[in-house]
């Protein structure tokens, strides 16, 4: 693939950069700013650094609109991960990352290295990684290819997290035909640290050393950043050399060693960064850029797994489990000794300079000499104009479901893989190692305690491409609101967000429209719910043979619980508790799971999300939980009230009788801003005073049946039957 013998002049005429994702105009821009024709290494570095993955050249104008700061945020986007203060001197660090393309090509390694990469982002800040969550989206599991994909992605995530000893505590798995050729594999990692110990990825101070640590550099994942920034075609499935291979054992040693350095040798450390996308070049260039310095690296010193690697290969390899440290001159041995103790390579490969240039040497010759800023600030930024797609300009009429047997409809929805029990997937993840998991997978959100404090964190990942497909702006706002509802239902106050923006090709105006509009919805919702976006990534080009996925922003949200006694779960606790519905129910079937199940597609218009009402309902639920009035709480999402109520009965042996003033079909409506809560009878007065008109008493827990009486129909089913339908569906579908 590489023509190392190409001269600068030949590059100009033969244009090898095109296959790495650079356009002719971008090549010209680079050459012009450099003031001469670049050599192969230099233009190769540009292809990595100017890729969407590293430079955000299409998404930057959108990302700039995100709300990223409030009084709790200690560090926002721009570093390895964002940091938020959680009190008692502690901070939470989190970020999410997508590995969609690698997982489509090589699902096991693609998913595993996605987890490995996001973990490095967390400990590069100096935080101990304490939890992993995932957000997966596949086609319907009705064919061998998809089943195999699901199995291998889950195995990859599990094997990495399990081996390294970080619990995978929660997440979500969605199924829709839009993801059949382009699965989404997003992983989020959460870390905890002392507020005072935050590290930044910077390389400052002339003469300070650049210490390469961890795995050797090989020819794997070369130019993966460019790979991730291009559309898929079926032929490219052969593109496996762009996928990396993970080694969780090596990463475990790396986590422990790096945290030891940040803890015991903070004075010697200037900065630390993960070698992720675009490997060695992006980590070092970003570290130099953030500090306003230059650097010189001797590539002969880079630990290499294979002989005769070219500068292009060494710099753009995405070999896993590597970190770059900037260490004060004279203190290299002290830091290296820590890594040696873990049997890890730690080699000084260069030093910081004051000339702002990025110079690489190999075999005594200069193979690259460009300004650092040429690879960072000078990357192009494209201000795209979105164009509203035809289907959004002329939405289909409202979907009106005909529900003749509400019990049968309920069972259909419980058996749909989007609702069905996911135990068979998440039981392959160690959810308990580190012994902090208070609420593991399967609830509205996971809850982990924060060691050394009296606090806990609630964690969730959420996405809903169905809504975005109908209205990106409203859908974007709903995704944020639903994530917040999941946290509130556990008793947590939402405090911040990380995101993975999974979209189609941004050079297509209709795809860019989705990105731009959904950002508006996300921004409005994050402001209303006081959840700034502190980190994230973009995954554009989620297209196969020209067909884009439904726009799917994944929201990873973190909430804070200051009183461990208020942690709440969705399951019923006792018979005789009162069941209240918070929020109003309308005929919201466009984009609903019921529509997808019955018509195999979604169509129609979404009703706008009233963020003020959302805010009020969430505040009411959180206040009631904090006052110890609530015995169980659950947000209402996929499948509506009937599904939410059924989920509250699972594994409890406690049924429910409710009566609602609505047509039976509305039991499955997905009107936003709703919760179900149960209240012990002796708290009825206190709860009703607090909730006022927002809450409607609809019935009581108890009995072996789920009975829901609506105006023109009813559900009356044994809860054991409903649980069996829910439990047996997915294992059967995946067989």
């Amino acid at each position: 693939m590489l023509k190392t013998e190409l001269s600068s002049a030949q590059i100009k005429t033969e244009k090898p950069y095109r296959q790495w994702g650079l356009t002719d105009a971008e090549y010209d821009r680079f050459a012009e700013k450099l003031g001469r024709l670049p050599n192969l290494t230099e233009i190769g570095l540009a292809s990595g650094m100017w890729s969407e993955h590293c430079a955000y050249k299409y998404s930057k104008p959108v990302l700039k609109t995100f709300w990223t700061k409030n009084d709790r945020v200690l560090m926002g986007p721009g570093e390895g991960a964002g940091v938020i203060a959680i009190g008692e001197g502690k901070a939470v660090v989190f970020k999410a990352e997508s590995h969609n393309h690698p997982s489509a090509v090589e699902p096991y390694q693609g998913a595993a290295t996605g987890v490995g990469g996001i973990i490095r982002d967390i400990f590069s800040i100096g935080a101990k990684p304490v939890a992993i969550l995932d957000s997966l989206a596949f086609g319907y599991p009705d064919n061998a290819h998809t089943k195999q994909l699901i199995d291998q992605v889950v195995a990859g995530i599990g094997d990495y997290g399990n081996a390294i000893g970080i619990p995978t505590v929660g997440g979500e798995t969605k199924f829709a035909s839009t993801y059949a050729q382009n699965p989404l594999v997003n992983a989020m990692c959460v870390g905890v640290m002392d507020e005072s110990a935050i590290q930044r990825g910077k390389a400052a101070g002339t003469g300070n050393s650049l210490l390469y640590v961890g795995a050797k550099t090989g020819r794997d994942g070369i130019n993966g950043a460019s790979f991730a920034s291009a559309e898929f075609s079926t032929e490219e499935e052969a593109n496996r050399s762009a996928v990396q291979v993970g080694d969780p054992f090596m990463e475990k040693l790396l986590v422990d060693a790096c945290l030891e350095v940040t803890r015991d040798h903070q004075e010697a450390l200037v900065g630390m960064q993960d070698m992720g996308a675009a490997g060695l070049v992006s980590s070092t260039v970003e570290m130099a850029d953030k500090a306003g310095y230059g650097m010189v690296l001797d590539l002969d010193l880079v630990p290499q797994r294979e002989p005769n690697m070219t500068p292009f290969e060494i710099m753009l390899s995405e070999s896993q489990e590597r970190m770059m440290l900037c260490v004060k001159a004279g203190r290299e041995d002290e830091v290296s000794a820590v890594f040696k103790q873990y049997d890890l390579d730690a080699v000084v490969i260069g030093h910081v300079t004051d000339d702002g240039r990025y110079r690489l040497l190999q075999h005594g010759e200069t193979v690259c000499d460009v300004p650092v800023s040429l690879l960072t600030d000078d990357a192009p930024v494209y201000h795209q104009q979105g164009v509203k797609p035809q289907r959004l300009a002329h939405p289909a009429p409202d979907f009106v479901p005909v529900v003749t047997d509400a019990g049968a409809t309920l069972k259909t929805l419980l058996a749909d893989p989007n609702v069905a029990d996911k135990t068979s997937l998440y039981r392959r993840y160690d959810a308990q190692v580190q012994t902090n998991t208070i609420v593991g997978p399967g609830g509205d959100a996971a809850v982990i305690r924060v060691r050394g404090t009296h606090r806990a964190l609630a964690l969730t990942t959420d996405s809903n491409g169905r809504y975005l497909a109908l209205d990106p702006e409203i859908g974007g706002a709903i995704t944020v609101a639903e994530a917040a509802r999941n946290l509130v239902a556990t008793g947590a106050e939402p405090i911040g967000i990380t995101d993975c923006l999974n979209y189609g090709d941004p050079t297509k105006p209709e795809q860019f429209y989705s990105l731009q509009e959904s950002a508006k919805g996300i921004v409005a919702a994050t402001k209303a719910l006081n959840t700034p976006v502190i980190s994230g990534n973009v995954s554009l080009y989620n297209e196969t043979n020209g067909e884009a996925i439904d726009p799917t922003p994944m929201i990873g949200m973190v909430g804070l619980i200051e009183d461990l006694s208020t942690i709440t779960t969705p399951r019923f606790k006792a018979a005789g508790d009162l069941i209240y519905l918070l929020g109003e129910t309308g005929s919201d079937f466009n984009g609903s799971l019921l529509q997808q199940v019955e018509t195999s597609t979604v169509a129609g218009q979404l009703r706008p999300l009233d963020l003020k009402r959302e805010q009020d309902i969430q505040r009411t639920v959180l206040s009631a939980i904090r006052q110890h009035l609530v015995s169980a709480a659950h947000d209402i999402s996929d499948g509506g009230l009937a599904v939410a109520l059924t989920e509250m009965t699972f594994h409890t042996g406690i049924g429910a009788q409710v009566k609602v003033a609505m047509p039976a079909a509305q039991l499955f409506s997905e009107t936003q801003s709703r919760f179900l809560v149960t209240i012990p009878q002796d708290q009825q007065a206190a709860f009703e005073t607090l909730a006022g008109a927002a809450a409607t008493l609809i019935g009581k827990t108890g009995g072996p049946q789920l009975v829901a009486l609506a105006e023109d129909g009813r559900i009356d089913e044994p809860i054991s039957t409903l649980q069996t339908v829910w439990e047996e569906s997915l294992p059967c579908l995946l067989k």
Partner: protein
Amino acid sequence: MKAAVISFPGSNCDDDLVHAIRDVVGECAVKVPATATTLAGFDLVLVPGGFSYGDYLRSGAIAKFAPVMAALKQFAQAGGYVLGICNGFQILTEVGLLPGALQWNTSLQFICEPEPLVVANADTAFSSRYEAGQTITLPIAHGEGNYYADPATLAEIEANHQVVFRYAHNPNGSLNDIAGLTNVAGNVLGMMPHPERAVEQLIFGTDGLGVFESLVEATKEGVYAEN
């Protein structure tokens, strides 16, 4: 009680064990690296869960050659209490301190779930705080927990009452539902479930506490005083 927790490269339940013993049970526990050459002065040695050396060849196959192994064998042969949990159990069978072996789960998948166990023998240093026949629930988290021993060995194990915990609903294919067993002398226990993950009400409940409390009692009795 003074407990040593052997920390191999790749162990990931060593900190959890130290936390359980030190912060919850209130006894002394320290981590000892796999390069240690002596375990003198400890009342109990724990071999923790995790993926020692990545478990790349076979669970425990590389840990078997760690420098600390000679000291561990010596400690066990002198009658010292040794508890191996999960990967620790795998390592103890690999080095021959316990009979049998742990194979891949019959599902060929890693399984993490709460597992009800029946206490088969409450008359050991590791289980005296439980009642025989009592059901407790501990988490399991393993890919290779399917206990196997040849028929003769298995018969011997049963005849000697070496089985301490049995699965109530066998999750992995283990012969005779074996979740944990001791050596003939009764001073070495290996178990796949994680008692250290079940010592606090807030986290998983306290069904695992009995293992550590039994050991506190056993080490107090001075059955084993020097090594």
